[in-house]
């Protein structure tokens, strides 16, 4: 961790350097490549920064997307610049695509490494709990919505049973209604939440991959199915006459 001084202010950054890696950018000596979140703070290609401790001048030569360490934007510098800035010859982290045991080094998987970041696990656990709690509450509301919507129409279903509609046809009706409403709702909410990813400021830690949206959509479809099926089971048990009398009331 460290910082760089610009013309007007100082930026807190997490510095990285790599050797012969295709996974990370490879700037030249005297250059720095920054996370794109700094663009929104007015940093542009060609800007000059100074390292406060060493006086090293660095020119911004590009930006990378979504490269942050903890909450600090990443700054990629050359190996020589890194050595000058931090006065150390040994690498702090060696990244390999597959996990290897190397003598004298401690090996971490990606998830172990992330867990070793100070307060990362505690923060993620809190966020995950909030997230899944919201999913649980929304799911319950969704199921209750379909349950109540159908149970409120008990009188109508009673009439339909009285005029001779089979119970299974009432189920098809409830499922069709649920499908239409759910698909419409998921399409709208999916579009809005995906659009939010493009519209929200870079500094806001918002990441909703399409795969997560699709997984949650499938989950909500299943929850809606459960809600409407439960109401159907209740309506199946009710006699047409009881249902009509409730509806008349």
């Amino acid at each position, binding site marked *: 961790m460290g910082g760089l001084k610009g013309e007007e202010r100082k930026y807190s950054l997490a510095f990285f350097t790599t050797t012969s890696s295709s996974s990370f950018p490879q700037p030249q000596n005297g250059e720095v490549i920054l996370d794109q979140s700094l663009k929104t703070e007015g940093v542009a290609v060609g800007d000059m920064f100074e390292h406060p401790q060493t006086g090293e001048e660095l020119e911004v030569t590009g930006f990378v997307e979504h490269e942050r360490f903890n909450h600090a934007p990443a700054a990629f510098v050359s190996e020589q610049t890194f050595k000058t800035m931090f006065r150390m010859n040994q690498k702090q982290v060696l990244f390999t695509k597959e996990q290897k045991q190397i003598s004298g080094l401690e090996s971490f998987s990606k998830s172990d490494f992330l867990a070793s970041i100070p307060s990362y696990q505690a923060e993620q656990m809190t966020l995950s709990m909030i997230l899944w709690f919201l999913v649980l509450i929304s799911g319950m509301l969704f199921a209750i919505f379909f349950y109540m919507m159908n149970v409120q*129409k008990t*009188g*109508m279903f*009673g*009439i*339909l*049973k*009285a*005029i*001779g*509609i*089979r119970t299974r*046809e009432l189920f098809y*009706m409830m499922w069709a*209604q649920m499908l239409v409403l759910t698909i419409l709702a998921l399409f709208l909410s999916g579009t809005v939440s995906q659009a939010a990813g493009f519209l929200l400021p870079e500094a806001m830690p918002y990441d909703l991959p399409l795969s997560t949206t699709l997984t949650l959509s499938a989950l909500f479809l299943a929850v809606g199915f459960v809600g409407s099926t439960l109401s159907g089971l209740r309506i199946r048990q009710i*006699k*047409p*006459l009881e249902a*009509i009398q409730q*509806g*008349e009331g």
Partner: protein
Amino acid sequence: MRTFQLTNIRKTFRNGDVEEEVLKGVDLSINPGQVTALIGASGSGKSTLLTIAAGLQSTSQGEIVFHGQNLATCKEEELRKIRAEAFGFIFQSSHLVPFLTVEEQLSMMLDVAGKHKDETSISSILDQVGLSHRRKAYPASLSGGEKQRAAIARAVIHQPSVLFADEPTASLDSKKSQEVMGLLKDMTRNLGMATLLVTHEEDMLTFADRVVRMEDGKIVV
């Protein structure tokens, strides 16, 4: 020819240790092309008799003979089939399916009765109930009178042999009640149905071909 014959119908309800006999041996026949009105004070048993005749609840004793078949001994699926194909129902509330248009309500009924969707008969019934211009309308956009006329159209689109109408004008004002009852009488004549009507409104009796008065679970007139 008598389409529908009820003989010695008795119905007893049990409430804890107390037994209450609501129908005490009722005999009634209803005939094609006629509106038979059942009247009586609240609790006289007229609605119970209608729902028993329609196969919506069981009888404690007695026979309900429809075209030679005793409905009192039919299984639930047989009753459902008879209700779908041969009976029509109109209740106090129209209970239209909220997400179907007027036309779709009729198509659904034809489907339930196992009949082909027939645009001509749908148009003809909608003409008769005066809803041709509202055929694409959803129930939410219909007035009370229009909803009840749509319910009548749904009840008769499959040309049932028997029409059961339980207080069909109870939620309507006087003018709309007259319209609906006039319509019911015309439909009964035109389609040759036997209509059993339960009402507590004396004004509506002018539309009935026969009036049957009930008191304390028995027919008195």
